[in-house]
């Protein structure tokens, strides 16, 4: 018996909120808008909780060819829309949702953190004119995100994938009167399109090679035939990775995420830190069977993740906008997650995804509270000494900073450690990946404490501003997220990996050396302890460095900048990547549009054709209008001339016939 969870309720509830607030929001009183906006995600969070409760209380069973017995719930639970969606000869695609361990964890994060951020937004957006519009977009995002997470096949996932891109675009450009915000929205959308091409091509290849897009069927086909190795699977996996890199802001497509900070801060917390940007990680974990059959693609994922982690971390060192520091930090942490996927430690990656969702949402919301209390100021150089004015915000930020830096016993420690541990034991290149990861941990700790010192410690650098603590609707979610950031890590990687084993830990033949499972791997306690101590030591080192630079010797940063002007400039200008893309992609494209498309095609061909047609009509009109003189006698003359011409035409054959007759007659007469 297949128990029905009514999974469709999870996305449909936020969608109802979107419709109500989107259509009627302007006319409804504010309290009604607020209640609809909060009720929708809360209800869907409740449904998710209920699913989790059911799955646990009945004791979930992993179904591997076992016979279903009534009363038990099997956790890859597929619920399909009764109507077929696409039915093209051999290809059948249904609109199906699947609930398994992976999507359950992800749903808890999305709806749980999503609900908290909705609550926070009530306080944050209180004075905004677009209050109802904001909440309708936010609900729309939750709708698409839950569709993405629940998707049972790649096409349904793609629907959610594009939908969250749309919601992200709408929310980045929320303050669309501001040109930079509108541009940032467009940039995010366009850069994501590049990644989506990868996703699309991967889907085409899946259909061509497997004849299906359903994740479980693909896994089954791959499992049946050990011949699938490398080749086309590598191409599919790399295309999927391109899609993931676009959505999750990895090298080389990360450039949209820092600009996405133009959106309201809760949006940055929800979409651009906690949930949407982790969709790429989720997708790689969801399609891990493909990656498992392609060691090369896995290696690419690991290298891209690691490179992104350290690359973004170095940029974050010198940024002065509080939100941009957090944005680069998000990119860097997403790099960790891809590193985890790349060494086939999917459960560690998902674990980091979960803990990151809590502490990064916390940091963003805290940054939002700071910005809110300072009346929109985002520059770290103008903050300082806020710990006295904003005690609650200060406390939760401290928790967030400790968590992201990886201090025991905060959440980040456990998940980051799990990834680094997996990387360390991953083949020969693993040591290098681990080393770069640990170095990134040092940088992470440094720039987070830099933010912490600049914003909260020392003396206020803008004494004219009198900050005030935010309302409770904002502080409540902060406190809850802080508690999660402290305690979330105690779930532990072993429990998470045992739980996720059925979803992401499928044992794959021929990939034994690449498969890493925490539940089957016997932890070497001494190694784990040594690596953890190294990681914490690195974090501590980062803190001490930041302490030295921004508390004990405040002149040191400027000195460093003058000693190493080249490096400093490189970092401040974010490695000139935007300029590089501008010169190599945007400029040629603009030039092509201007000279070829505008001048030649638009003005030359299309404009010329239109001009010529118009010219012909004009010329003919100029001639013909002389006819329309209004003079009665000229009309009559034309009429008479016409009649005469008609007569002539009728008479000409007669005349010729008569003439020939006459000639014959004359000829006869001449005889």
């Amino acid at each position, binding site marked *: 018996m297949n128990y029905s969870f009514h999974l469709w309720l999870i996305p449909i509830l936020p969608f109802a909120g979107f419709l109500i607030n989107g259509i009627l929001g302007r006319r409804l009183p504010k309290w009604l808008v607020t209640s609809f906006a909060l009720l929708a995600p809360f209800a869907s969070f409740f449904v998710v909780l209920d699913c989790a409760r059911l799955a646990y209380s009945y004791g979930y069973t992993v179904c591997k060819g076992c016979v279903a017995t009534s009363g038990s719930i099997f956790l890859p639970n597929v619920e399909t829309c009764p109507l077929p969606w696409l039915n093209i000869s051999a290809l059948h695609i249904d609109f199906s949702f699947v609930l398994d361990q992976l999507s359950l964890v992800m749903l808890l994060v999305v709806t749980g953190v999503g609900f908290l951020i909705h609550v926070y937004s009530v306080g944050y957006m209180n004075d905004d004119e677009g209050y109802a519009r904001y909440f309708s977009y936010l609900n729309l995002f939750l709708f698409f995100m839950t569709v993405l997470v629940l998707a049972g096949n790649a096409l349904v996932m793609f629907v959610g994938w594009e939908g969250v891109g749309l919601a992200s675009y709408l929310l980045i450009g929320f303050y669309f009167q501001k040109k930079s915000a509108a541009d940032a929205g467009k940039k995010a959308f366009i850069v994501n399109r590049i990644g989506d091409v990868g996703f699309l091509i991967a889907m085409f290849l899946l259909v061509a090679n497997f004849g299906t897009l359903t994740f479980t069927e693909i896994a089954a086909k791959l499992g049946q035939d050990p011949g699938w190795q490398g080749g086309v699977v590598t191409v599919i996996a790399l295309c999927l990775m391109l899609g993931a890199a676009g959505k999750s802001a990895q090298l080389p497509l990360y450039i949209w995420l820092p600009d996405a900070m133009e959106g309201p801060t809760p949006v940055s917390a929800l979409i651009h830190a906690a949930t949407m940007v982790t969709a790429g990680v989720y997708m790689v974990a969801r399609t891990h069977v493909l990656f498992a059959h392609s060691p090369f693609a896995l290696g690419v994922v690991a290298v891209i993740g690691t490179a992104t982690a350290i690359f973004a971390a170095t940029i974050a060192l010198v940024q002065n906008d509080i939100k941009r520091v957090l944005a680069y930090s998000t990119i860097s942490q997403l790099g960790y997650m891809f590193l985890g996927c790349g060494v086939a430690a999917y459960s560690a990656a998902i674990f980091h995804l979960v803990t990151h969702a809590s502490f990064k949402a916390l940091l963003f919301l805290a940054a939002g509270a700071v910005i809110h209390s300072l009346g929109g100021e985002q520059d770290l150089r103008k903050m300082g000494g806020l710990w006295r004015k904003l005690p609650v915000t200060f406390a939760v930020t401290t928790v967030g900073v400790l968590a992201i830096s990886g201090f025991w016993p905060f959440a980040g420690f456990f998940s980051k450690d799990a990834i680094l541990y997996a990387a360390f034991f991953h083949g020969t290149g693993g040591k290098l990946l681990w080393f770069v990861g640990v170095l990134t941990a040092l940088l992470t700790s440094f720039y987070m404490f830099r933010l912490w010192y600049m914003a909260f410690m020392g003396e206020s650098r803008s004494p004219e501003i009198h900050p005030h603590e935010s309302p409770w609707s904002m502080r409540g979610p902060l406190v809850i997220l802080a508690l999660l950031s402290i305690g979330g890590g105690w779930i532990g990687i072993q429990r998470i990996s045992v739980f996720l084993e059925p979803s992401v830990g499928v044992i794959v033949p021929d990939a034994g050396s690449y498969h890493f499972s925490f539940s089957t791997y016997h932890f070497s306690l001494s190694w784990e302890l040594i690596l953890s101590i190294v990681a914490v030591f690195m974090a501590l080192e980062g803190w001490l460095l930041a302490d030295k630079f921004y508390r004990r010797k405040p002149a040191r940063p400027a000195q460093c900048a003058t000693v190493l002007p080249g490096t400093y400039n490189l970092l401040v200008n974010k490695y000139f990547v935007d300029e590089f893309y501008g010169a190599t992609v945007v400029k040629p494209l603009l030039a092509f549009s201007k000279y070829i498309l505008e001048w030649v095609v638009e003005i030359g061909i299309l404009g010329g054709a239109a001009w010529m047609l118009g010219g012909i009509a004009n010329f003919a009109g100029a001639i013909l209008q002389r006819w329309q*003189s*209004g*003079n*009665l*006698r000229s009309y*009559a003359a034309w009429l*008479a001339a016409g009649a005469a011409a008609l007569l002539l035409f009728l008479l000409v054959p007669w005349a010729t016939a008569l003439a020939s007759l006459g000639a014959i007659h004359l000829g006869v007469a001449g005889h």
Partner: protein
Amino acid sequence: MSSFLSQEVPLSWYLILSAILFSLGVAGFLIKRNLITIFMSIELMLNGVNLSFVTFAHQWHAVKGQIFVFFVMMVAAAEAAVGLAIIIAVFRARATLAVDRIDRMKL
């Protein structure tokens, strides 16, 4: 003499007369400037055609042609009534009957 009198007028004479009348009408229509003269030229053309109708009706002993003539005369009478009314209106508005100067729809 008696043979000349007793002889019927040949058909072609009627037709030639009809053509002359019609051509006079056309010429008058094209040449004349006065609206009323033009109007009269139209009547001349109509009667030229009427004459050929009657001629053929007589020739073929078909009454249809004569019925046609009555129709034409009736329409011409109606036309004369309407046309003259229009001409009077035009004259009141423009104080002229020269068609060359009546070449605009609006005043």
